[in-house]
């Protein structure tokens, strides 16, 4: 019964909690969204501006995260402008590297899926946030 509820997304309906919380009884929604010709195979990059104006790329190890956590949590926070979370990550960055960031921006690039194979895509800035001085 638990796996039936998990498989068909009944847990969020019954308990108002995401399915993942009920692991190992979980749903399997991976790769569910259709994509079409011209889709950008997204790759996100995070850049931080330091107090002296220079820019550095922020990578998962800089925050002590693996790629998944970096992509889902840190980049997710930037995309949704979740400032408390972004500031918390900036603090971790400062603790780990000794560099204080004053501004963070998120860029997306990646190749485009076409009939003739992959073609280079453009860089797009998705978000930019200024951080409070600490």
């Amino acid at each position, binding site marked *: 019964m638990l*796996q*039936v509820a*998990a*498989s*068909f997304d009944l847990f969020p309906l019954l308990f108002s909690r995401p399915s*993942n*919380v*009920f*692991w*190992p*009884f*979980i*749903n*399997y*929604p*991976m*790769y*569910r*969204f*259709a*994509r*079409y*010709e011209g*889709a950008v*195979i*997204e*790759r996100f990059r995070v850049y931080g501006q330091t107090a002296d104006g220079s820019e550095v790329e922020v990578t*998962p*190890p800089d925050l*002590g*995260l*693996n*790629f*998944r*956590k970096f992509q*889902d*949590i840190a980049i997710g926070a930037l995309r949704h402008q979740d400032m408390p*979370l972004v500031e*918390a990550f900036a603090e*971790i960055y400062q603790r780990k590297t000794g560099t204080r960031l004053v501004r963070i921006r998120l860029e997306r690039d*990646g*190749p485009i*899926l076409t*009939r003739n*194979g*992959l073609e280079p895509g453009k860089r797009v800035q998705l978000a930019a946030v200024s951080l409070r001085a600490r």
Partner: protein
Amino acid sequence: MIMVGAWERYWFKKAPLFDLGFVRLVVVGVELYHLAMLRPRAVFGQLAALPDFLYSPVIAMRLLTLPLGWGYRPSADAMVVVYWLTLAAGVLAFVGYRTTLSLIGFTVGSLFLQAFEYSFQEVHHAEAIVKIALLMLALSPAGGALSVDDLLRRLRNVDRGLRIPSDPLSGESRLARWPLLVVRWVFALIYLSAAFHKLGASGFDWMNGWTLQYYVLQDALRWGRSVSGSGSAYAVEPGLGVWIGEYHTVATVASWVSILFESTFWILLVVPRLALLALPIGVGFHVGIYLIQRAPFLSFVWLYAVFVPWSEVFRKSGQWLARRISPPVLRYDPLSAPSVRHATLVRYFDWFGITGLRATPPAEEGAGANVLP
């Protein structure tokens, strides 16, 4: 009443304990291998170093640590201790010593370790069914065959007067079928869930070819030749998927095959004979995903063991072998308890049943060179 009877017969029909015991070896073996490959200090040290705001325990973690508080967060040292205890319980569960107890210990330990890892807002799917299978085995007579417990029980029977070395494939129980059936149903539900989400979110567009091309290329570019989730992403060397992902027609056909496979796998539970068709497709499906997208769902392939009637496979293979080789003959003296014990021990490891048994008192056989003492 008819429905109740049918329900009882379905779940609790007598089934060979050997099948359950063999699945125990596979599931515990796979999980033990997975655990043994970990470097506990590094893995749990990294997790323990993550900030508190990332810690959001899954329900399993909350329940397992309930006596210590609802949001209790164990230290790296505690996790390393649990790791070694789990590994020890796993070895016992594998060999089948105090099987129920060691399986419970191994299952709880494995759940705890994995639940801790997944309590930092990152949950993966490949391990879930292994944990569910372990849970089912822990609640079943999984030590009823292919275990030290079973061997000791058979030897005790000899001491009580049994004078025939028992067949390791013999032994049935009304409780030997349901755990395997539950895991089979979980398989069906997992595949149905995958198809349900794809078709629910995208309809038939999911099979347009572009979708699969996109995900194959995304994973191949992201993970390169590393297994998904391991190593640093965007490796210099892209994976095999970059080449495969160029072929739109291949992707379209593969999309249809995937959806058909996922949405119809449950039929296997109604028509078990379809296993001969469905399981090889499933093996190809998961091995293909592993090679092309580097998604490590190989535990699914191992767990297909629950669909195989192992006692029948070994018995038939043994009959086939016996026709082609000259089968060894195991002579024993039925009047001697030590001889029957030794013969029982030797026969216990003859899963193919190719050893011929011959009760031969040494006096009648003369030299008795082949007679077990």
